């Protein structure tokens, strides 16, 4: 096992805690939605396994994984953007 990956994993945990510890509760919904889009990176995992698929079963499951991942990543970023474009400051 590559210990570098484990090292990166541990550091990421701390960064994840650190970056959101000061988010005001008014932004919690967009934040949840935004991080939801970021785990949509599983879309790439779907592409990798489908690119590699050799049997009909693997193709089918990989195909479903790509659809799910694609909906997660595109839908996630779009819905977050739609929410955030509505946060406007008062026009003076």
């Amino acid at each position, binding site marked *: 096992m590559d210990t570098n990956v484990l090292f990166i994993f541990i550091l*990421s945990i701390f960064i994840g805690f650190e*970056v959101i510890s000061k988010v005001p509760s008014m932004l919690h919904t967009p934040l949840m939605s935004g991080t939801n889009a970021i*785990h949509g990176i599983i879309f790439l995992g779907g592409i*990798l396994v489908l*690119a590699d698929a050799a049997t009909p079963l693997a193709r089918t499951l990989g195909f479903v994984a790509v659809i*799910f991942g694609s909906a997660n990543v595109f839908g996630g970023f779009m819905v977050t953007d739609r*929410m955030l474009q*509505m946060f406007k400051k008062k026009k003076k």
Partner: protein
Amino acid sequence: MSSTIAIIIIGVAVLFIIGIKLLASPKTARLGNLVAAAGMLVALLTLHQPAGEYVWSQGWPLNYTLIAIGTLIGLVIGAIGAYSVKMTAMPQMVALFNGLGGGAAALVASLEFIKPDRDITTFIAVTMLFATLIGSLSFSGSIIAYLKLEGKFEKPMTFPGQNILNGLILLVILGLGVYLTGWGANTTAFIVMFLLALFFGIAMVMPIGGADMPVVISLLNSFTGLAVAADGFAINNLAMVVAGTLVGSSGTLLTLLMCKAMNRPVTNVLFGAFGSSGSGGGKAGASDLGGKTVKPIQADEAALLLGYAQQVVIVPGYGMAVAQAQHQVRELSDELGKRGVEVRFAIHPVAGRMPGHMNVLLAEANVPYDQLCEMEAINPTMDRVDVCLVIGANDVVNPAAREDKSSPIYGMPIIEADRAKTVIVMKRSMAAGFAGIENLLFYKDNTRMLFGDAKASLQTLIAQLKAS
């Protein structure tokens, strides 16, 4: 891994971190989302196989056609969902997207695990099984959360010995996991584990009431993150490890923050079946009221009170979302603003079905965010407020949290609406809130009840104000 790929992945990780960081302020949040999306695009365009070859330079075999079709289908589903969903239904949409992500994570790990010619270490086998388990649990759990938010079997579903049964299922799943790690790929055992994990997701969320779904979705969001990180280990993709872990840890912190706002430990949300214990406490609370009755108010009188106030605080709750009344609320606030009344909105961290749910709805109705105040900012000023208008909020303004030690919500931080000179509560009927607890606020001497549909009542109020 070549150093070029390594540098690109560092760039992707930095974009994700900066993106989340920028999401922390209303001024930069939209940019933050775009920065994270840019990170995703870079990761996609520079995608490499675990062995190191570039994914997009291997000709165009059948699998690539499938990738293109699948991507397109997902894109269409995502776009339709994202742009057609009403702002009030946002929590459901996030739950659904999260579930899809969890499902994808489980499928990716499964495919790697049942690959016939694999040669993996025990550690990698464990990460694959972990991703399968957590991913499928997140998938089925999110679907149930989605259905509950849509109003299907909203009530907690409980039976005696439920926690014990769930514990047993979890033990069987873990046992199968250990077996699969030690004895290689037994496809039958693997499928059984997969199905049990799906079932466990359902069994875990079913006993939790609709009001607690924000916590559940947040938790499942961090679960999916962890499953994606485990997938990253399994297929040796660093970008996935970083992105998944960031979501996993930030999601966990967000879940804890939410539970803190409700003054309940996370274990109580997950295993407490709040609804059943809450109604018992509610009955005890009701008898203490000593025959006190509520005082109704008519719209014209309410309009008078509001129109001649100096300071008005509006407390929105889930009822406002149900009545789709956010635009009327903004209109009322504008109308009062024109008359020189200072209007502020008091937002409880867990008002609605998601943290910040009210902020999104009010932002949709063009309420400027500098008018939205957090609970901690508004409470110290409550004594100077002339009229506090409560629109469809219930548990988050219940003084029982301060006064009634026997109440299940005792100790929960609330918006102290009862300290305003006059409180006007807009409510459809006298039904209890989601926690099933009698609200002491309704019986206070300075409280007036304005019964009826929030949207219709608001329209009457606006018309009255305009006429006077």
